[in-house]
C-alpha cells in the first residue's frame, strides 16, 4: 500500500505534463513536479550558486542595475550638496517624489512578510516555493524605502534628530508626529523581516556549506550557517521560533502600512484626512507586493530552472491573490469617492472631483487602469497560465501602485483650502533620475541574492515531498490536496505532538 500513492502521483504528473494546478479531490496535487526527490531539490537550488557562471541575462541585468545605482549615488550627492530645491517640490506641495517613492517601496516590502507569515499561519504550503524570494525582495524594498525619508529632508545631516538620542540641548523627538511612528514602524519592520529571512535561511546556508568545495565558501557559508547540524532538538525549537515570528510579523505587517498611511490620514489636507486609509493602504501594499513578486519570479524561474519548484500552481495562487487584493483596492477607491460626496464637505468633495477630472486626471486614469482594470484578466485561467501576461500584469501592478501614491500625496496637496495657494507640481530631472536609481539599488541587491544565496527554502520544500514522512499512516492524508506532515499524530503512540511520555 505504501507504493500506491507514489505511482498514482507520478502518473498524474506525467498526464498533466507538470500542470499541478488541477484541484481534483481524488488526488493530492504535488507542489514539486518532475518527480524530484530530496537530492534533486538540493541540486536544483544549489546549482544556481554552484554553477561556474550565471546565465548571460544575469550579467546584462547586473550591468543595467549597477548603472542605475551609480545614477542614484550621483543624484543623492547633488541633492545633499545643493538642497531639496533641485527637486520639483514647492509651496503647497511639500512632499512629492521623495515620499511617493518611500511609500511605494515600503508597500512593495509587504508581500514577503505576508507570504512567509500570514500564509504560514494559514497553512498555505505553496508558500514554501516562493517565500525566500519574496522575503529577500522585502528586505531590499525596505532598504530602498528607508533611503528616501533620509534624503528628502532639508538638512539630511540632522536627520538623526528623529532618534531619541540624549544631547547637550536636552531635546527629544516629538512623539505625536506620525513621522516618529514611521521611524519606529519601518525600523521594526526592517529588523523583523531581516531576522525572519535569515532564520529561514540558516538550514539552507548549511546545505551550501556542506556542498561547497572552495575553502572560502566553506568558511563564509560555515559562519553564516552558525554550525547548523539538523539536530531534531534544534529543529523543534527552530520551528517554534519560526511560528512565533510568523505570529508576531502578521500584525506587524498590517501595522506598518497603516502607520505609513497615518502620515496622511492624521493630517488635515482633503484627500489625506481619510479614515479608510489603513486598510486601503495595506490592501494596496499586498497587491503591489505580489505584483512585484510576480514581476521578479517569472524571469527568475525561467533563468534558474526553478520551474519544478516554483510551479504553475504557485503562479496560479499568486495570480488569484493579486486579483483579490486589486479588487479590494478598487473598492477603496470607490469608498473614498462615496464618502467625499456623502460627507458634504466642500473641500473634500472637490479634491476627489479634481482627482478624477482635474489637471492630473491622466495619472488617476493610469492608476485606475493598472490597479483595477488590468488585473481582471486573471479571471481567465489561460491568462494565469501565460507567463507573459502574468509578467505584464506584474508590471501594471507596480506602475499603478506608484501612481496611486502620486495621486494621494502631491496631487492632494496641489489644491487644498485656500485657492490662493493652489499650485501645480512637476518633477525635475533629478526627481526622475532618483526614482530610476532606486530601482537600480533594488535590482542590484536582488541579483546578488539570486547568485549567492539559496533562492528557495530547500528544507521547507523537502517537507512537501511525499517521502518526507515515515510510511504507515497516510490514511488521513489521502484525500488532501495539500498536506503537512506535521499534522500527523505519532503513528504508533497515538499521543499528541510534543506530549511528554
Amino acid at each position, binding site marked *: 500500500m505504501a507504493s500506491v500513492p507514489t505511482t498514482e502521483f507520478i502518473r498524474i504528473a506525467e498526464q498533466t505534463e507538470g500542470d499541478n494546478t488541477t484541484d481534483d479531490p481524488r488526488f493530492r496535487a504535488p507542489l514539486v513536479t518532475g518527480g524530484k526527490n530530496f*537530492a534533486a531539490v538540493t541540486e536544483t537550488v544549489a546549482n544556481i550558486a554552484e554553477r561556474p557562471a550565471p546565465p548571460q541575462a544575469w550579467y546584462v541585468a547586473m550591468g543595467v542595475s549597477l548603472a542605475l545605482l551609480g545614477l542614484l549615488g550621483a543624484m543623492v550627492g547633488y541633492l545633499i550638496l545643493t538642497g531639496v530645491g533641485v527637486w520639483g517640490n514647492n509651496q503647497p506641495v511639500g512632499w512629492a517624489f521623495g515620499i511617493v517613492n518611500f511609500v511605494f517601496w515600503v508597500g512593495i516590502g509587504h508581500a514577503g512578510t505576508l507570504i512567509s507569515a500570514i500564509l504560514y499561519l494559514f497553512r498555505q504550503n505553496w508558500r514554501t516555493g516562493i517565500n525566500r524570494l519574496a522575503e529577500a525582495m522585502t528586505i531590499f524594498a525596505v532598504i530602498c524605502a528607508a533611503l528616501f525619508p533620509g534624503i528628502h529632508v532639508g538638512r539630511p545631516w540632522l536627520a538623526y534628530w528623529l532618534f531619541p*538620542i*540624549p*544631547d*547637550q*540641548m*536636552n*531635546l527629544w523627538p516629538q512623539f505625536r508626529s506620525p513621522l516618529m511612528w514611521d521611524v519606529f514602524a519601518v525600523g521594526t519592520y526592517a529588523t523583523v523581516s531581516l531576522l525572519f529571512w535569515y532564520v529561514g535561511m540558516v538550514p539552507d546556508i548549511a546545505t551550501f556549506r*556542506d556542498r561547497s*568545495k572552495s*575553502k572560502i565558501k*566553506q*568558511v563564509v557559508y*560555515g*559562519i553564516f550557517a*552558525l*554550525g547548523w547540524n539538523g539536530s531534531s532538538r534544534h529543529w523543534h525549537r527552530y520551528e517554534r521560533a519560526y511560528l512565533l515570528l510568523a505570529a508576531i510579523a502578521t500584525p506587524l505587517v498590517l501595522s506598518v502600512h497603516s502607520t505609513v498611511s497615518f502620515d496622511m490620514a492624521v493630517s488635515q489636507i482633503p484627500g489625506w484626512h481619510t479614515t479608510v486609509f489603513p486598510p486601503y493602504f495595506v490592501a494596496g501594499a499586498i497587491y503591489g507586493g505580489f505584483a512585484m513578486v510576480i514581476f521578479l519570479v517569472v524571469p527568475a524561474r525561467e533563468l534558474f530552472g526553478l520551474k519544478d519548484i516554483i510551479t504553475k500552481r504557485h503562479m496560479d495562487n499568486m495570480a488569484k491573490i493579486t486579483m483579490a487584493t486589486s479588487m479590494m483596492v478598487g473598492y477603496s477607491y470607490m469608498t473614498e469617492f462615496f464618502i467625499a460626496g456623502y460627507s458634504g464637505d466642500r473641500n473634500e468633495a472637490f479634491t476627489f472631483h479634481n482627482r478624477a477630472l482635474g489637471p492630473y486626471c491622466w495619472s488617476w486614469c493610469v492608476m485606475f487602469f493598472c490597479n483595477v482594470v488590468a488585473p481582471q484578466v486573471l479571471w481567465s485561467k489561460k491568462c494565469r497560465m501565460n507567463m507573459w501576461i502574468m509578467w505584464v500584469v506584474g508590471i501594471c501592478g507596480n506602475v499603478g501602485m506608484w501612481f496611486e501614491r502620486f495621486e494621494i500625496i502631491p496631487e492632494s496637496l496641489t489644491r487644498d483650502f485656500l485657492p490662493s495657494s493652489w499650485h501645480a507640481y512637476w518633477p525635475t530631472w533629478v526627481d526622475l533620475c532618483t526614482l530610476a536609481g532606486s530601482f537600480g539599488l533594488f535590482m542590484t541587491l536582488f541579483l546578488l541574492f539570486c547568485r549567492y544565496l539559496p533562492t528557495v527554502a530547500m528544507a521547507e520544500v523537502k517537507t512537501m515531498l511525499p517521502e518526507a514522512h515515515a510510511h504507515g499512516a497516510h490514511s488521513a492524508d489521502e484525500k488532501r490536496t495539500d498536506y503537512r506532515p506535521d499534522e500527523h499524530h505519532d503513528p504508533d503512540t497515538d499521543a499528541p505532538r510534543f506530549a511528554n511520555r
Partner: protein
Amino acid sequence: MTQEWYEQPFVFPKWANFLLPGIVLAVVGGLFYVPTVVGLGASPKTTAVGYEPVQPVPYSHALHAGKLGIDCRYCHTTVEKANFASLPPTETCMNCHTNIRTESQALAPVRESWATGKPVEWIQVHNLPQYVYFSHQAHVNHGVGCIECHGRIDQMERVYQVKPLSMGWCLGCHRDPGPHLRPKTVAVTDMNWTPPADPTDAENLAEQLLKDYSIHDKAYMQSCSTCHR
C-alpha cells in the same frame, strides 16, 4: 553521489566556537562605548569650558575687579540697559592710565589705540550661537549675578570660560531659577555673596525672590521663543 562527498571535509578549529559570541559581545560593547566617547568629546563641557585665549593686552580682572575692586559696570556699562555687555572703549582705560603706569610695556597697545584711534582687538571668550538671543538686561536686572555664567572673574588673571554655556546648561537654570537669584540688596556684581547655608532658608529665599522679581513660570522659561527667534 559524486566522489567529493568522501573527501576530508573542512572543520572549523575549536576556538571558532568563541568567534561569533565574541563578535556579538564586541558589537554590543561598542554600541555603548563609542557614543559615550563621542558624546563626551563633543559636549561643550569638553569643547568650550576652559577656553582661555591670549589677549592683546594682558589685562588682569584679578587685579582690577579683584584687588582694586572696580565694579564690573564701570567698564561694561551697558549690561543693565542693553541686551549685551559692551566692551569698554579705549577712553575708559585711559581715564586712569593717562597717569598710572604710563610707561608700562603691557599697556602699549592701549596707548597706541588711543593715539591712532584703532580699536584694541580683544578676543571673545564667552560666545553663544547667533540664534540664541541672550539678554544681559533681562538677567542682570532680575538678580542673576555675573558669577552665575562667568565664574570668579575677579580671580582670573586671564579670562577663561567656566560654564559650558550649552542649551542644556541654560535650561538648568531656566527650569529652576530660584537658587540662582540674589536679593535686590546684593549687587549682581558681588562675587562673594553666597545663598544661605541652611537649605530651608535658601529655599525660602529662592521662593521669595521668585516673587520679588516676578520670574516667569517654568512653562514660559523653557518655551523655545524665550531664547530663540
